[in-house]
C-alpha cells in the first residue's frame, strides 16, 4: 500500500479538547506511504464523508485510515463511503483516538503523541490489508419456531403471513403454552383462552405452518441459512390423520385418576386424554406410563370404541429432518418448585410455607386453574382439601424471587400484577370473601398497570400488608399465616382458608440442553442470553438464532408478543433474499501447510472448522486438512492461536499485520 489517506476528526470538542488535531495531521502526513492527511470537525457528517470520497478519487488512494471514535460507532459509515467512491471497504481502518486517547487522558502533549502512535499502528495495518469480498451464504427460506406458547404462536404467524414456511415444534400435546391455562389476563381481564384460541386455530390451519406437536428438537446441525434440524415426534399411540377428535376414547377410558399436567395436579385426566377442550391439534395422546394396554397388554377399551380405527398401540417415536434458515426459540417458563426437592443444589425451597404438606397451600398457576371457567372446578373457587368456598385467602408475593439467601435474586416481574388480578377475581367470585396480600414492593410499570392494582385495593377491597410471611401452620383445618406489617410495625396473623404463593418464574425444563444443541448462551438461571441487553434484545450471539418470550427473562404477555414480532421481523430480514452476506474477516487455513492435527477443530467454540480431504482431479487422495466453514466462523481467532504449524490466520487481522503494527512502535 503506498497511497494511504488519513482523515483525522476533531469530533467537536471530544477529541480536540485533549489532542492537538492539527499537529497530529501534520505529523502523520510525514509518514512514508501517506498520500494525504486532512482533518475535519465532524468526519462522520455528510460533508466529512464527502471529503473521504473526494480524496479517494482525486488522490487515487488505495487505503484509508479515519482517526476518530471507536469502530463500533462508525466503521460501517466509512466503509460505505469508501465503497461508494470505488474503494474496497476492507481497505478502510479506524484509529480510535477518542475512547482510547482523548477521553482517558488529560496531558495534551502526551495525548497528542499517543494519538500519533495509534494512527501509525493503523497505517501499518492498512498497508497490509487485502481487498476482501463479503461471504455469500445460500439461505433456506424457512424458519423453525421452538415452542408453541403465545410468543411462538405470534412469531410463527408473523413469519408465515410474510410468505415464508414455518416449522413449529411443541413438546406438549397441544400448543397454547401457559397462557392457554390462565383464567383472565391483566390489565383488561380478557378471558385468556378467548383471545388465544383464535390464534391457535390460525396456526393449526395456516397453509404455511407445519406443526409438530408432542415433539421435541433432537439435534441441530449446520449454520445460519442452512440449519438441519432433527425432530423427535413422540409416539401418541393415536393416528392423528385418522382421528376425528370425537372423544369416545377418553370418555370410555377406565383409568380416570391421573393428575392433570395442564391443571397442575388440581384436577384429573384419563390415561388417553386431550389436555383441554380447545387443544390444537384436537387429537388425544396416550400416557404410556399408566396405560394398561401399553404396560401389560390389557384393557384396550378405547381401541374397541374408536370408529375411525385411529388407536395404534404399536406406535413408535419418529425422527424427522427439516431444513430451515433461521430459528426462533420461544420455550417459555415454569414456576419455581416451592417444596423442598429442587433441581439445583443452591435452591432449598420454602419449607416454612408448607407447600406440598398442606393441601390448601397452592401456587399461582394452580390458582389460575381453579378460577378458570374451563378448569377442574368449572371456575368455582373451592379449597382443594374439602371443597368448601374459602372466605379468607392470603396471597404471598415474591416466593423464590428477590431472595439472595435461598432463592433467586431477580424479580419475576409479573407477580405483583397477577396477584392483584387474583385478588380481584377472587372478590368477583366470592363477594363477601377477603383477600390479603403480603408484598415487599408493588411493581406495576406497564400501561394501565398501576391503575389496575389500585382497583384491586380500592374497588375490590383487597388488604395489602407490606411484609413477609414467616411461617404457615395448620390448626383445625385453617391455615395460620404469620407475617408482618412493616408500615404499621405490627405482626399480623391471619387465619386463612387458602394460601396462594406467587412463585418465581424460571425457564422451562430442558432449556440448558436445548441451548447447547443450538450453541447459544444462557445465564446461571438458564435464561437465554441476548446479543445486547439494550439494542439487540431478540438476537443471540449465534447468527440466525433468535429468542422471544419468557425463555429470555420473566415477562408478561404484551412483552412476549412484542418480542415475538420483533424476532419475526429479524427472521424476515434474514430470509428476504436467497443469499446472506457475512463479514469476511474470518479465519482461513493454508491447506498446503496444514498438518491435520485438528487442534483447531476441537478448540473452535462455534464448531466452524471441518475435517476434510484434498484429492486430485481424479479422486486420488493427497492429504487431510482442516477447513473453515465461512458460514459459521465468527472470526474469534482461537484457531490462529492454537495452530502449531501456523497454518490458520485471520483475514484482515493477519499475524503479519499485527507484527507490523507492533514493530512500528519500536
Amino acid at each position, binding site marked *: 500500500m503506498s497511497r494511504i489517506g488519513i482523515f483525522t476528526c476533531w469530533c467537536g470538542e471530544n477529541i480536540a479538547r485533549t489532542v492537538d488535531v492539527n499537529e497530529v495531521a501534520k505529523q502523520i502526513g510525514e509518514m512514508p506511504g501517506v498520500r494525504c492527511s486532512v482533518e475535519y470537525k465532524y468526519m462522520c457528517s455528510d460533508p466529512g464523508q464527502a471529503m473521504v470520497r473526494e480524496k479517494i478519487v482525486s488522490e487515487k488512494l488505495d487505503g484509508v485510515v479515519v482517526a476518530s471514535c471507536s469502530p463500533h460507532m462508525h466503521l460501517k459509515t466509512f466503509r460505505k463511503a469508501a465503497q461508494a467512491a470505488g474503494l474496497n471497504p476492507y481497505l478502510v481502518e479506524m484509529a480510535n483516538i477518542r475512547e482510547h486517547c482523548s477521553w482517558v487522558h488529560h496531558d495534551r502533549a502526551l495525548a497528542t503523541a499517543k494519538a500519533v502512535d495509534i494512527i501509525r499502528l493503523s497505517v501499518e495495518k492498512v498497508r497490509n490489508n487485502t481487498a476482501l469480498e463479503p461471504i455469500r451464504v445460500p439461505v433456506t427460506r424457512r424458519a423453525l419456531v421452538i415452542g408453541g406458547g403465545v410468543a411462538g404462536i405470534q412469531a410463527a404467524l408473523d413469519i408465515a403471513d410474510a410468505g415464508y414456511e414455518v416449522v413449529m415444534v411443541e413438546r406438549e400435546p397441544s400448543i397454547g403454552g401457559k397462557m392457554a391455562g390462565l383464567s383472565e389476563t391483566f390489565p383488561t381481564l380478557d378471558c385468556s383462552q378467548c383471545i388465544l384460541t383464535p390464534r391457535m386455530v390460525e396456526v393449526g390451519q395456516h397453509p404455511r405452518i407445519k406443526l409438530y406437536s408432542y415433539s421435541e428438537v433432537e439435534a441441530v446441525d449446520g449454520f445460519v441459512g442452512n440449519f438441519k434440524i432433527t425432530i423427535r415426534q413422540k409416539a401418541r399411540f393415536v393416528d392423528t390423520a385418522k382421528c376425528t377428535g370425537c372423544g369416545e376414547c377418553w370418555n370410555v377410558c377406565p383409568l380416570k385418576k391421573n393428575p392433570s399436567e395442564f391443571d397442575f395436579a388440581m384436577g384429573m385426566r384419563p390415561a388417553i386424554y386431550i389436555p383441554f377442550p380447545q387443544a390444537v391439534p384436537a387429537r388425544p395422546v396416550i400416557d404410556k406410563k399408566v396405560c394398561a394396554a401399553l404396560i401389560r397388554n390389557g384393557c384396550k377399551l378405547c381401541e374397541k370404541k374408536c370408529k375411525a380405527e385411529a388407536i395404534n398401540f404399536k406406535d413408535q417415536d419418529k425422527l424427522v429432518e427439516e431444513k430451515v434458515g433461521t430459528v426462533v426459540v420461544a420455550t417459555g417458563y415454569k414456576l419455581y418448585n416451592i417444596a*423442598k426437592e429442587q433441581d439445583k443444589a443452591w435452591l432449598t425451597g420454602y*419449607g*416454612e410455607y408448607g407447600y406440598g*404438606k398442606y393441601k390448601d397451600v397452592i401456587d399461582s398457576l394452580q390458582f389460575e386453574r381453579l378460577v378458570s371457567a374451563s378448569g377442574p372446578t368449572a371456575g368455582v373457587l373451592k379449597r382443594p382439601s374439602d371443597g368448601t368456598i374459602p372466605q379468607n385467602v392470603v396471597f404471598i408475593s415474591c416466593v423464590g424471587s428477590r431472595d439472595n439467601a435461598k432463592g433467586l435474586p431477580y424479580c419475576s416481574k409479573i407477580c405483583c400484577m397477577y396477584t392483584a388480578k387474583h385478588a380481584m377475581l377472587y372478590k368477583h367470585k366470592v363477594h363477601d370473601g377477603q383477600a390479603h396480600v403480603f408484598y415487599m414492593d408493588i411493581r406495576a410499570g406497564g400501561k394501565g398497570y398501576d391503575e389496575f392494582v389500585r382497583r384491586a385495593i380500592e374497588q375490590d377491597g383487597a388488604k395489602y400488608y407490606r411484609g413477609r410471611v414467616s411461617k404457615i*401452620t*395448620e*390448626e383445625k383445618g385453617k391455615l*395460620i399465616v404469620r407475617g408482618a406489617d412493616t408500615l404499621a410495625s405490627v405482626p399480623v396473623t391471619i387465619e386463612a382458608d387458602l394460601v396462594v404463593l406467587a412463585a418465581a418464574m424460571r425457564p422451562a425444563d430442558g432449556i440448558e440442553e436445548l441451548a447447547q444443541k443450538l450453541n447459544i448462551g444462557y445465564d446461571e438461571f438458564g435464561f437465554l442470553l441476548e446479543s445486547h441487553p439494550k439494542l439487540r434484545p431478540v438476537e443471540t450471539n449465534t447468527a440466525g438464532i433468535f429468542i422471544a418470550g419468557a425463555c429470555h427473562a420473566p415477562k408478561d404477555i404484551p412483552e412476549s408478543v412484542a418480542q415475538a414480532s420483533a424476532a419475526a421481523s429479524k427472521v424476515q430480514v434474514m430470509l428476504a433474499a436467497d443469499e446472506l452476506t457475512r463479514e469476511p474477516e474470518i479465519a482461513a487455513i493454508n491447506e498446503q501447510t496444514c498438518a491435520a492435527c485438528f487442534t483447531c477443530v476441537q478448540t473452535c467454540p462455534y464448531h466452524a472448522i471441518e475435517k476434510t480431504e484434498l484429492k486430485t482431479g481424479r479422486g486420488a487422495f493427497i492429504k487431510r486438512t482442516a477447513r473453515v466453514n465461512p458460514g459459521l466462523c465468527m472470526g474469534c481467532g482461537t484457531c490462529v492461536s492454537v495452530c502449531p504449524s501456523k497454518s490458520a490466520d485471520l483475514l484482515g487481522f493477519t499475524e503479519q499485520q499485527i507484527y507490523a503494527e507492533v514493530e512500528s512502535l519500536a
Partner: protein
Amino acid sequence: MSGQMKIGYYPGCALHGSSNDYEQSLRACLGVLDVQLQEVKDWICCGATAAHALNHKLSLALPARNLALAERDGHKQLFAPCPLCSMQLLKVQKAVAGGDGLRAELAQIVEADLRGDGQILNLIQVFQTIGLDKLKAAVKEPLKSFTAACYYGCLLTRPPEVVHFDDFEQPKSMEAVLAALGAKTVEWNYKTECCGAGMTMASEGTVLDLAHKILANATAHGANCVVVACPMCHVNLDMKQAAVEQRYSEKLGMVIYYLSDLVGLALGLKPEQLGIDRHFVTKAQS
C-alpha cells in the same frame, strides 16, 4: 451392644446445676448402651446467652477454650447435651475454619492449642451414632402408651448454616428415635418455636406466654407428653408449668421427658434410676 463407645463429654453449667436430673437420665441410659462418657477435664462455662449478647470476642473465646481442652484430652467426638453449648462449640469451629488468623488469635487468648476439627454431638446425634436399629433391637419395653410431641426448641436445628442438623423447618430426627422405641408421635405446629430460653428469671412473663402456646398446641394435637433434648426447654416447660397454669387458669398436666428418659424406660430402666421422679410435673398429677 457390641463394642464400647468412648466419647468426650461436656456437661455444661446447667447439667451440673439445677438440671442435674438430665445428667442422671443420660448417664443411666447411655450406661446401658455401653457408651462411656469421658468428662472434659477442667471445663469452663461456654458463655451461654450472656456472652454472645454482650461481648462477641468472649462468646468465641469461652467455647474455644473448651474445644482446646477436649482436643488436649484426645477426644475426636465431643457430646454436649445442652444445645446452646453444642451450637456455640460448632459456631467457633465454623468461625475458625474461615481462616483469617482467628484460630491463632483464639489459641493465644485461651492459652491452649486449638485445631477446631472435632465432631460435636447433641443427644439425638449420640443415638444416631449408636444406630437406631441397634437401639430398636435393645428395646425391652416398647413405649406403647406414649404419644409424644417432639419439641426441638431453637438451637438443635438452628442456625442451619452452623449446626447442619436435620430439616430446620420440619425436623424429624427425634421422631425417628421414638419410633425405634415403639412410641407414637404427633405432628404439631410448635416443634421449633422458642420457649423463652434464659429469660426465665429476667422476663418471666415472656417465658410463661411462650410455654403456654407450646403446651397448649401439644395438647391440642393429641400428645400425652412432650419430649425435649435441652435443659432450658425442660425448665421452662416443666418447672414453670405450675406458673403457666396459674397465669392462664388452665390445667395442663403435661409431663415433659428428656429424650434419654424415654430411651432409658424402653431399655427397661426404672423411672427413679432416670431421675424422672425429680421432675416437677409427674405422671401421678396428670
